[in-house]
């Protein structure tokens, strides 16, 4: 491990879990001892080679890592600018990047002797990954999912059930991801002795944002050596979609100190940023606040009441964002942009037609941004977009929007 460098962007958070103004541990007292216990267990695991060996073994033989870095030749030609590479985390077991983090947390839960795993899920990818890992290790699994999302992500609900998880449709609030997270926290407050809360994104109280980032950083670490192998140098830009931001931070983090690498996060602009309740872009349309254990940018009204976001993508439909992204935006290291529902749908179709790859709606937002940025870049500009999930789960939603195909 390298020692922390001065002027490095990679040393956060501080010992209290802060990335600048953001992060922290804003939880009820009942959970505080659990979070401190988790932090301690993670600190131990982090320096234990056996933990890393076990995780590396699973990444290779169970997940199928490294995921390929693929030159998207026809898309590159079509857009006529930057040389576009796909980081193909959609090829992972369970179909998204979520499994990278889940296996890390489940191994940790086993070390801590926890027998019952709870999780929240939006698009269902984190729920499927958690149900998968729980099946593999014989752990009880309860997944909280907004009732709206249960409806729009049916294929994933069936998958989780087949894997033996109990799905709890959440009827409170807007019945989407934020409400699922509230309900998972309520479960955790109630079942403190035997339960491990497996959070799916790089948000929540410390140490989750740092821990999830660490487990997802395998994405960027692989891109680094893969690009070196293929092109003999660093990429020039990295692009990823952002809901909570775990795939993006996993891709970006290993490159934060490489000043030449441009980093772009793409939020979900839903119907458009002009509609305060019609998008899920918390950096573009939110302000700093406190929710779900951390301070970060949130969509809310003047009274501090949380606004229900909207995105066609259930995985991006969250009114907050991981605290490290909030900090990276404020210090200017990462450029954040957004793509609308329509732009994402267009990009999804373009990707299908040009590359024979059906991306999920989430990375379709990143692809929408690529289709705008790539033409402006020279042909020797190496651009990597994280295709963090596959689109099988979205076919019904997409069909509905495109008129049944």
């Amino acid at each position, binding site marked *: 491990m390298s020692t922390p460098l001065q002027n490095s962007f990679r040393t956060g958070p501080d010992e*209290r879990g802060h990335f600048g103004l953001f992060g*922290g*541990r*804003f*939880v*009820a*007292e*009942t*959970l*505080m*001892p*659990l979070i401190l216990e988790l932090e301690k267990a993670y600190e131990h695991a982090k320096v234990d080679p056996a933990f890393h060996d076990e995780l590396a073994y699973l990444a290779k033989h169970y997940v199928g890592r490294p995921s390929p870095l693929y030159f998207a030749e026809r898309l590159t030609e079509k857009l006529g600018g930057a040389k576009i590479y796909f980081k193909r985390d959609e090829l992972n077991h369970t179909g998204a990047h979520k499994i990278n983090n889940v296996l890390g947390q489940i191994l940790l839960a086993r070390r801590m002797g926890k027998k019952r795993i709870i999780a929240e899920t939006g698009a269902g990818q984190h729920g499927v990954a958690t149900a998968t890992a729980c099946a593999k290790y014989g752990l009880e699994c309860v997944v909280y999912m907004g009732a709206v999302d249960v409806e729009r992500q049916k294929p994933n609900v069936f998958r989780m059930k087949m894997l033996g998880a109990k799905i709890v449709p959440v009827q*409170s*609030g807007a019945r989407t991801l*934020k*409400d699922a997270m*509230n309900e998972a*926290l*309520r479960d955790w*407050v*109630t*079942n*403190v*002795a035997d339960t491990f809360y497996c959070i799916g994104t790089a948000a929540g109280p410390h140490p989750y944002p740092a821990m999830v980032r660490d487990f997802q950083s395998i994405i960027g670490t692989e891109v680094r050596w893969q690009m070196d192998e293929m092109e003999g140098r660093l990429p020039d830009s990295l692009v990823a979609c952002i809901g909570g931001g775990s795939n993006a931070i996993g891709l970006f983090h290993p490159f934060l100190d490489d000043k030449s690498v441009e980093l772009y996060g793409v939020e979900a602009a839903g119907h458009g940023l002009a509609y305060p309740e019609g998008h899920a872009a918390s950096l573009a349309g939110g*302000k*700093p*606040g*406190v*929710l*779900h*254990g951390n*301070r970060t940018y*949130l969509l*809310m009204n*003047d*009274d*501090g*009441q*949380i606004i229900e976001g909207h995105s066609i993508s259930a995985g991006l439909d969250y009114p907050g964002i991981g605290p490290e992204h909030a900090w990276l935006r404020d210090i200017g290291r990462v450029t954040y942009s957004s793509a609308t529902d329509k732009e994402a749908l267009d990009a999804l179709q373009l990707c299908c037609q040009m590359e024979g790859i059906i991306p999920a709606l989430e990375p379709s937002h990143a692809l929408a941004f690529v289709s705008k940025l790539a033409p402006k870049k020279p042909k020797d500009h190496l651009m990597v977009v994280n295709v963090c999930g596959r689109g099988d789960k979205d076919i019904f939603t997409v069909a509905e929007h495109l008129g049944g195909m």
Partner: protein
Amino acid sequence: MTTRIETRFAKCHAEGRAALVTFLMAGDPDPATSLELIKSLPKAGADVIEIGMPFTDPMADGPSIQAAGLRALATGMSLAKTLDLVRAFRAHDNETPIVLMGYFNPIYVRGVDKFLAEAKEVGVDGLIVVDLPPEEDDELCLPALKAGLNFIRLATPTTDDNRLPKVLTNTSGFLYYVSITGITGAATPDYSKVAGAVARIKKQTQLPIAVGFGVKNAQTAAAIAAYADGVVVGSALIDTLKNSLDDKNAATGKTIAAVTALVSEIAAGVRQARKAAE
């Protein structure tokens, strides 16, 4: 400086009984009924009044209090209007302590210093902010103490003897012991364990200890009042309130009477508890 909260707990102690702490959500079911309800509480036997600050995402609350917050927000309730409610109550009652309870985000967004100045000015005595553990004391706890407000902390069954000093530091007014691991309005606690926990905490503090979560009626209140300095009741009052509403969640002629009747019943239980034990 002695606060209304300290004065009230001392008075109840002198009377040889526990204090009854009642919780209702500001603006539930509408601002006008909410004010009338809160004004009627002292006469019905409430010693300390907790007023919920409505929030869209109350992570530590069960369905009853979640729904109460959403009903209040639906009628346009806000943090500013919650402060107005306290001001209106104070014009009528200058002795009953008022504690605002809720989550940090609305306070943070309003601005901590601004909120504290306003709270003090309208006559708030203490704050309970569920998602601010001692680790985040710089955010609100220390500024609140400096502004002359009590900052009441929750201790829970997961707060062991090692952690307890950390929870007690900077806690003032009283300590709120959460009788179960869980959300509001959920399970009924194991009273023998709660008594043991209160005794354990008393070894480390002189602060009055109020016990809440799982208090549903006179009988459950009396069981706790036998050994605790205060009994907190919330979800049971809110359930009663909810049951008195019409099918559009509007107040009816029965609303205030139904809630005050339950408060009176529980207040009688609290007052009888130690006499019965003697």
